[in-house]
């Protein structure tokens, strides 16, 4: 089997974002998706700090400290983009105006619960940012994460052991091994990477998966 690398995962998610979509890309792995959005599509990226029409990082000489993304990195505004204040920005999120939020995760449960903000460790300083708003607000919540932890445990679990970001909020999971839809009756495998058959994916994942007719 051939696992997807981070760039391939980003490209895989990008392929599913349609023309005209309003999208928020979370910090970290999801931010990579911006680099792979199909060139022919007009897709509008939202940034929590108050931008619609977020563009790529500028060349060093054109950095403007008043134009940053949600990760506080230098960014640009595309033609047609605009700025607004924080309450409007989160009205867009919470008010179900965004078509997609793409978020990283520590764990996703069979029910679509998302854990991505806090390990719960005694010495960990908690920080949540906009994750809980995106989890409940976007029309579709797409999660992007590695399928397994470093010690080989499935990050798709029966119940999240980390503190929740949102309950029953995830619609689809993209991992380095598979694409899986979260539905009321359970997890449906949409596709798996080349060389990974359903039984092996099921063995690695631990929680029950369902086959789509088209799945490997």
């Amino acid at each position, binding site marked *: 089997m051939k696992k997807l690398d981070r760039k391939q995962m980003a490209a895989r998610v990008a392929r599913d974002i349609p023309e005209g979509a309003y999208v928020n890309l979370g910090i970290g792995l999801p931010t990579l998706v911006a680099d792979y959005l199909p060139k022919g599509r007009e897709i509008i990226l939202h940034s929590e700090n*108050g*931008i619609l029409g977020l563009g790529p990082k500028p060349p060093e000489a054109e950095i403007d400290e008043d134009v940053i993304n949600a990760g506080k990195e230098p960014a640009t505004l595309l033609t047609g983009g605009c700025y607004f204040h*924080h309450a409007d920005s989160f009205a867009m999120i919470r008010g179900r105006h965004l078509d997609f939020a793409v978020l990283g995760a520590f764990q996703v449960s069979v029910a679509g619960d998302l854990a991505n903000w806090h390990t719960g460790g005694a010495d960990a300083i908690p920080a949540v940012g*906009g994750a809980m708003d995106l989890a409940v607000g976007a029309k579709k919540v797409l999660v992007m994460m590695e399928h397994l932890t470093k010690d080989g445990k499935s990050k798709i679990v029966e119940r999240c052991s980390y503190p929740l970001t949102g309950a029953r909020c995830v619609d689809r999971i993209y991992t380095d091994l598979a694409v899986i839809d979260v539905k009321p009756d359970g997890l449906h495998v949409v596709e798996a990477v080349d060389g990974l058959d359903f039984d092996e994916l099921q063995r690695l994942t631990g929680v029950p998966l369902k086959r789509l007719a088209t799945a490997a």
Partner: protein
Amino acid sequence: MINKLVPTPEAALADVPNGATVMIHGFGNAGMPAALIDALIAQGARDLTIVNNNAGNGDTGLAALIKARRVRKILCSFPRQADSWHFDAQYRAGEIELELVPQGTLAERIRAGGAGIGAFYTPTGYGTKLAEGKETRRIGDRDYVLEYPIQADYALIKADRADRWGNLTYRKSARNFGPIMAAAARTTVAQVREIVELGDLDPEAIITPGIFVKRIVKH
């Protein structure tokens, strides 16, 4: 004649008492009113409750205020960052209190504070640790958490241009928390790049009307 222009940041913040609640505008460095924060440090008020999205970056601005041990409590959404060492150290030592608020709930609580709203129900955080102990309610087919407004004694804002009535424009994504914090504080002080004549700001482009602003400092 109304004239909200104050000569220096120090003069604008001379009356901040110990124990005040102070909203500080900015998302990272974008919109952070550095000159006003420096003046607040020099002024010496302590036991402050600070409202900001973060808990200081590096050694300047809000981080310097924390380092100077003037902050008793902070309300924010994202304290932990690679360069939030002054907050981290005081938090781990139990010397600073943290009220962690989801970012959109923080923004809406501030907006509600300025808008005279008594409380509101939001779906954000339902079923999570951050909603523990809070009232919840099912409305239609969704569950919501009751959240209360945040108001402040002072708001420190960075804007781009102002006139003597206190009308403000902002610059790009540095607008972030400015307009909502300006409305939610009893005394809003704006640090601005440029003061222009009354009438020179396009009325269609004014983002914060002067009614929300008490003092203006050019810096």
